């Protein structure tokens, strides 16, 4: 009986991803090219934001993946803590740099978008600020993995950090909203929120989001394979040293 837990077996994971990774990567490429080209070349300007609205095709998908990347790490960490599947822990480790990069893209495109709109490269808008904090959480997580030699210890510690970090990240989100708007639902400078995104923008945006999701998936699968191999190599070399 096939169960998803079969893929927790490293060998099964490797053999399965051997087959599906090329497909996912190709699909991702197609979706990204199609979506970005559609959005860039074929959509009109926004009457208020001019051509900068085209940045939405990068900013929104990357921001979504920044958050979802962390959520995926959270789930993978929980699976490690409960079921001790190494592939899960390694997948979390693999996903972190990808999520961090997505956060950077979201921040950079947000800043570039903000310059002509708000007249400043950075504004302590609650949403941008929350992403900056998220980036710091990613950095800490990646740094902790790098600092610990023992694989199992590292997996355990980073998993707990991811859990605690998630709670505090959520808490920070509310704190930051409070900090910048007080109790008043003030005019949000958020660029993507209440834009009733018209259909003409919406469909290419969906394609871009799909492209980014597939890109994230492809990169995480690729990097998890690398982590599995690296772990095996470390184990073999340790055995060599003892022999």
């Amino acid at each position, binding site marked *: 009986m096939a169960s998803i837990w079969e893929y927790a077996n490293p060998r099964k994971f490797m053999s399965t991803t051997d087959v599906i990774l090329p497909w996912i990567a190709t699909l991702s490429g197609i979706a990204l090219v199609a979506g970005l080209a559609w959005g860039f070349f074929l959509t009109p300007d926004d009457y208020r934001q001019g051509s900068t609205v085209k940045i939405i095709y990068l900013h929104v998908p990357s921001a979504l993946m920044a958050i979802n990347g962390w959520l995926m790490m959270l789930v993978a960490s929980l699976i490690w803590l409960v079921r001790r599947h190494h592939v899960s822990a390694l997948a979390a480790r693999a996903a972190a740099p990808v999520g961090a990069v997505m956060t950077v893209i979201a921040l950079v495109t947000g800043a*570039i978008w903000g310059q*002509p709109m708000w007249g400043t490269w950075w504004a302590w808008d609650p949403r941008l600020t929350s992403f900056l904090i998220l980036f710091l959480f990613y950095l800490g997580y990646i740094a902790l993995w790098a600092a610990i030699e023992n694989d199992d210890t590292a997996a355990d510690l980073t998993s707990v950090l991811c859990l605690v970090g998630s709670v505090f990240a959520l808490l920070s989100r509310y704190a930051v909203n409070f900090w910048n708007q007080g109790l008043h639902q003030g005019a949000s400078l958020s660029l993507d929120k209440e834009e009733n995104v018209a259909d003409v923008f919406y469909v290419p945006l969906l394609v871009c989001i799909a492209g980014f999701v597939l890109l994230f998936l492809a990169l995480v699968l690729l990097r998890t394979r690398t982590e599995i191999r690296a772990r095996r190599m470390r184990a073999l070399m340790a055995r060599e040293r003892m022999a």
Partner: protein
Amino acid sequence: MMPDLGKYAGAVLSAYAVSLAIIAVLVLWSLWRARRVKAALEKVEARRHGQG
């Protein structure tokens, strides 16, 4: 073919350029690292099978 981006041309183009460049670096780095680790693992395994 290039749409008229008006006065925001610089912003839009740089946003696309930077994002795509970052993605390209991430993809290339991931591929490079994958290849490197795979080669190193094969070396270690060959040593092992040579002895075993």
